């Protein structure tokens, strides 16, 4: 029973995520990539990550974020959907407890915008 529902949900988002990558769904969540780029600077993501399109972002604590629009998994744990990436950006400790990436005090919309920007990176 649960398996069938799980498979149905999987199939529904897999068609989008598997074929077209996460970018197509980004609009559905209402993330603004332009605003996201500005927020990346504000929240200091550059301190740990190298991020294309963000001039000062040359951090080397975490992995480079080029190609995040095509990356299949986030932190090797969860599929890279707009919802998952938003959640990761805001509450990384919930996804990877004890990891180097902290929870960041930001509203949900901010995390959606940042995720939307990252999903433009190919």
């Amino acid at each position, binding site marked *: 029973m649960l398996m069938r529902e799980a498979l149905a949900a999987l199939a529904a988002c897999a068609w989008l995520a598997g074929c077209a990558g996460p970018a197509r769904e980004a609009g559905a969540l209402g993330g603004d990539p332009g605003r996201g780029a500005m927020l990346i600077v504000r929240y200091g993501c550059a301190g740990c990550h190298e991020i294309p399109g963000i001039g000062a972002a040359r951090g080397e604590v975490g*992995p480079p974020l080029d190609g995040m629009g095509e*990356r299949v998994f986030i*932190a*090797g*744990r969860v599929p890279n959907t707009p919802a998952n990436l938003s959640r990761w950006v805001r509450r990384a400790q919930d996804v*990877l407890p004890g*990891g180097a*990436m902290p929870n960041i005090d930001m509203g949900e919309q901010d995390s959606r915008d940042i995720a939307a920007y990252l999903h433009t990176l190919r």
Partner: protein
Amino acid sequence: MPKLSSRLQVPGLGFLAGAVALVSCAPASQAQRQADASVERGRRLVGQFACGSCHQIPGVLGADGTVGPPLRGLARRSAIAGLLDNTPENLTSFIRLPQSVVKGGVMPDMGLTEAEAADAAAYLLSRS
């Protein structure tokens, strides 16, 4: 300084050039040779174990996977998988048993021996 007589200048320069060549091409130390061999074995292993089907890896033909992060500049990163300090020992452990670091993660325990994991780590750390 007295100028070398013109008859001695050419052989003198030749001697100097020869000495420089010998010094710069001196056989590498044992440790260096072992390190180089490890990096070369690591490059082969990275190909054999299909790491490139999940990661972009410099120097490995066809390594353009997008499942995990790109592995270029690994030596400069502070953390491995966001969880471990980036040391050769930790990278070796992670490559050998990633599930022990990220349980339930997408990177499987692929059955490399300790030595193989160390060689693979050496290769990855050698590529900036």
